[in-house]
Every structure is written in structure tokens, then in C-alpha cells.
């Protein structure tokens, strides 16, 4: 994506070690605030929330010795901008294998920005059942001044104040060459 838009990296805010640490801490906080991994259902939001959720699940398993449930949400069909984005975007599969009723669902995404993705994810989740509780974990929180909906994260890897012209890119080995988080901007802005 960065190449397509001709973006330049302004600064690197996390390397792979820092990301590992942040994810380990997120996993610990999730377990701590829920008093264990019982009834936990970790759900990654496509695309970049998915590998992050997987890593959190692995961390929780190594902390608790018990693997929480794991699922994937594709929010495309719940987007609020389908009538404005032009051609309809590609739909990927939602995989919630287990019943969400009565579970503590932790949504995982890479970046919290406007909050619209999370709104879509929550709406979709509710169509699958009635979780006891829904929480949000993100690797990067860009700050409340960009929020367009009243949505906050319960667990944050790193809070990064940004300008609207900037783009935060979480690079993961599943999709990119490297494992890092950087702030990008279009040249001349």
C-alpha cells in the first residue's frame, strides 16, 4: 500500500522487538483484567488484526497454559461507506467457529483511528449472538481527536498522536517484508 500511494516513512515507532513486547503486555493485561482466560474469545479483524490476534492467543496460552477461543471477522459487508467507495471492495470470509453467547470477546485490530471499523465489527459480532462483554485491543491508538464515533480501546500497545495527513502502517511478516510500525506521509505534506 505504501508503494502504491508513494508514501515516505517519517519515523519508525516500533521495531519487531518492541512489537513483541507490546503484544506480550497486551496479552497479560487481557488475562489480568478478565481474571484468566476462561470464556475469552480473541477475534482478529481482517486484515492486519488477524495475525496480531493469533500472536495474542499464543501469548495467552503460554501465560495461562490454556488456549482461548480464536476467530476472524471480515467487516467489509458492514462498512458504512459502501455507497461512497465506488466499486464494492473484496469480501473475505468471517470465521467465528464457536458460539459467542456468554463469551468475553476481545476484538483485535492493528490501528484505532476513526473508530468506524470497530463499529462495523461490533455490529457484525452482535449478529452472531450476545457476548457477555466486548473489549477492544489495538496495537496502535492514534488518539481520540481523530475519533468519529464514541469508541475507545481497552488495551493499547502504544498511543501515538498523529496528524490527519499521516498514515500509520503496521507491517507484519504475514503481509510485508519486515516487522515494524512506521509513520508515513505523502511527500510534500
Amino acid at each position: 500500500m505504501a508503494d502504491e500511494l508513494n508514501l515516505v516513512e517519517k519515523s519508525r515507532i516500533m521495531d519487531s522487538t518492541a512489537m513483541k513486547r507490546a503484544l506480550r503486555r497486551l496479552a497479560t493485561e487481557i488475562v489480568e483484567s478478565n481474571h484468566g482466560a476462561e470464556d475469552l474469545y480473541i477475534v482478529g479483524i481482517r486484515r492486519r488484526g488477524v495475525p496480531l490476534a493469533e500472536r495474542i492467543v499464543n501469548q495467552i496460552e503460554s501465560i495461562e497454559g490454556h488456549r482461548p477461543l480464536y476467530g476472524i471477522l471480515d467487516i467489509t459487508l458492514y462498512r458504512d461507506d459502501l455507497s461512497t467507495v465506488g466499486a464494492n471492495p473484496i469480501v473475505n470470509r468471517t470465521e467465528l467457529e464457536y458460539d459467542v453467547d456468554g463469551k468475553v470477546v476481545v476484538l483485535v485490530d492493528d490501528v484505532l483511528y476513526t473508530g468506524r471499523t470497530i463499529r462495523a465489527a461490533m455490529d457484525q459480532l452482535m449478529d452472531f449472538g450476545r457476548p457477555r462483554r466486548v473489549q477492544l485491543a489495538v496495537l496502535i491508538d492514534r488518539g481520540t481527536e481523530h475519533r468519529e464515533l464514541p469508541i475507545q480501546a481497552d488495551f493499547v500497545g502504544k498511543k501515538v498522536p498523529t496528524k490527519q495527513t499521516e498514515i500509520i502502517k503496521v507491517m507484519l511478516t504475514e503481509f510485508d517484508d519486515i516487522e515494524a510500525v512506521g509513520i508515513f506521509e505523502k511527500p510534500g505534506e
Partner: protein
Amino acid sequence: MNKPFHRKDLLGIRDLTAEQIIGILDTAENFSEISNREVKKVPTLRGKTVINLFFEASTRTRTSFELAAKRLSADAVNISVSSSSVSKGESLLDTAMNLDAMAPDCIVVRHSSAGVPHQLAKVSKAAIVNAGDGANEHPTQALLDAMTIREHKKHIEGLEIAIVGDILHSRVARSNIHLLTKMGAKVRVAGPGTLVPRDFAYLIGGNPTGREGVHAATLSSTGGSPSISESNTLATGRVSALTVCDHIEDAIRGADVVMILRIQRERQDSAYFPTLREYAIHYGLTNRRLDLAKKDAIVLHPGPMNRGIELASDVADSSRSLILDQVKYGVAVRMAVLYLSTGGTAISSSKGEQ
């Protein structure tokens, strides 16, 4: 250039590239999960209107389109010919323009005459989806057949596929021959001589402008000699992927997929074959005939089937018959088509929001 299917209308498989077909099938596969949910509905097409305009009787296809629209939260309206003003003498285009004035987003049309959806597409602002036009095409049927094949065989390229029955009148056969040859399958057709056109170019051609990208899969197998005009290359390329057999046994022998067409009993008075009983004896698919196919061969039928005529009852009820899978995937395919065709004009959809 990989151009996804983001066009306004779906009039036929003939107009699609292999990449576009794959794009629709991939989307449909991702939609299929929605029908397994407890709440079988997503808000995607909320506020959009889909009109099912059926000039020909249909239960399965109409219900399938209606469910597809409703599961995407679109409002679906069904119009069938018996209740329409066509019976009061209104012309087709007037009907279309009147419907258009009510601002639907999509009109799904079935008509007994070939080309009706194409006419509507010219006058209507709505996306037109062909749900079967005469003996021309039935694109969503071919797509759901392809989806069924992909689910069971994982791929279509290289498969040997027998299509048996009334090829002459079958829009299902036409759409399938287009789709399967574009996807690189080998197709063998068989049926009574009166119901199987010998002229390959007629079956697979009809696109004299030679649109770019079409039939790439089969073109490559001919070596793509540049000296031959494109339409000729198209014909030769795909002829090698299409064989007409005199006997059903020759078509079925070694096949991965056996596609049985419905005998259109309403055409019986035209004497294409002597009796239904004779048809059943010579062209009906029995277990004995099916044994000639590959061991893991699957059987498809577009429905509604005439048990004991084109398809023996024990074959229809066997585990090799995927007729109900076809119906199931039909909803997913139609959801994908409605989703893609109501999505506005094609622009690159890079998310770029973070």
C-alpha cells in the same frame, strides 16, 4: 491486467474474462458462510432495491435471487408475468422504463426471448442481471455450477466435463460451455442428433468483435498464431476444448463431472426425439453409464429434474449427485453478483484509511 468484475450488468458469461469469473466465485465462496449463520443477514445492501422481473415461470431461481437480496438487506420485489401489465399489452421497453422510474438498483430479468436483458440494459439505469434469456444464457446457473465443481474438485482447469441432453435449447449448456472452456476445462457434449448443434463456432462464438482478454486460457493452448484473425483463433482455441460425441457413453467415459440437462417436455410436440421413454433408454444417466466416468465423478443437474428420464432416480439420490449443493451455492453466487453489480463504477479500492 486483472480487471475484477465490477460492471453494471451481468448479461452473460460470454462477456467475462476468466479472471472476472474467478473473482465472482471467490466472492461467492466468502458469502456462503452467511447462510450458515443464525442471523442470515448482513446490512450490506441496505436501502437498495432489487426487482425480480420474471416473464417465465421459475421457482428455484426466483426464490434464490430473492433470498440473496434479502440476506444482503436489499428490498426485493417480485414481478411475474401473470400479474404484470405486459398481459395488458404494455411493451417490454415501456415496462422497463416504468420500473426504472421507480429507481431500483438492480433488475433481475428472465424472459423466454434471447436478448431481452441486453435490451433492458440499454434503457435502464439499474444494474441488469440475466436470470435466463431464451436459449441464450443463464450466467448465474453456470457460476453456481462452477462453484459446486470448485468446492468438490478444488479447481476447474484440466477437468473433463460431460454435458448431456438438449444442448440446442439449453441456456444452461451455453453459459456452462462458455465458462468451462474459459476456465480451461475440456467439455464433451452429447445428446440426440436433433438437439446437439454440430457447429462449434455457433456454440462458442458469437463474439465477432473479439473482446480483449477473453478465452485467454484456451488461446494459449493453440500457440496464439498472430496471423490468424482473432475471432478465428478464438474458435479454433476453444474448439479443441469442446467435443461433440454421438453417444452419451463417449462423453461420460473418464469424465470428472457429468452435467445432465433437463429435457424440456414443453418442447415435446416439436418431435426432437420419438418418445421420452426412448430418450431415457439412450440418453438417461444410469448408474451403469455413470460407472464409465472417473470413480470420484460428480453429477450436476440444473433442475427441475425429470426423474427416470434424463436422470435415473438412484443416481439422483446417490452421494455423487450434488443437486442440492448446487441450489445451496446458488444463493451465495447470487449474493456475490448482486453485491458486485450494485457497487458503482470501478475505481481502485485501496483502503488507505490508517
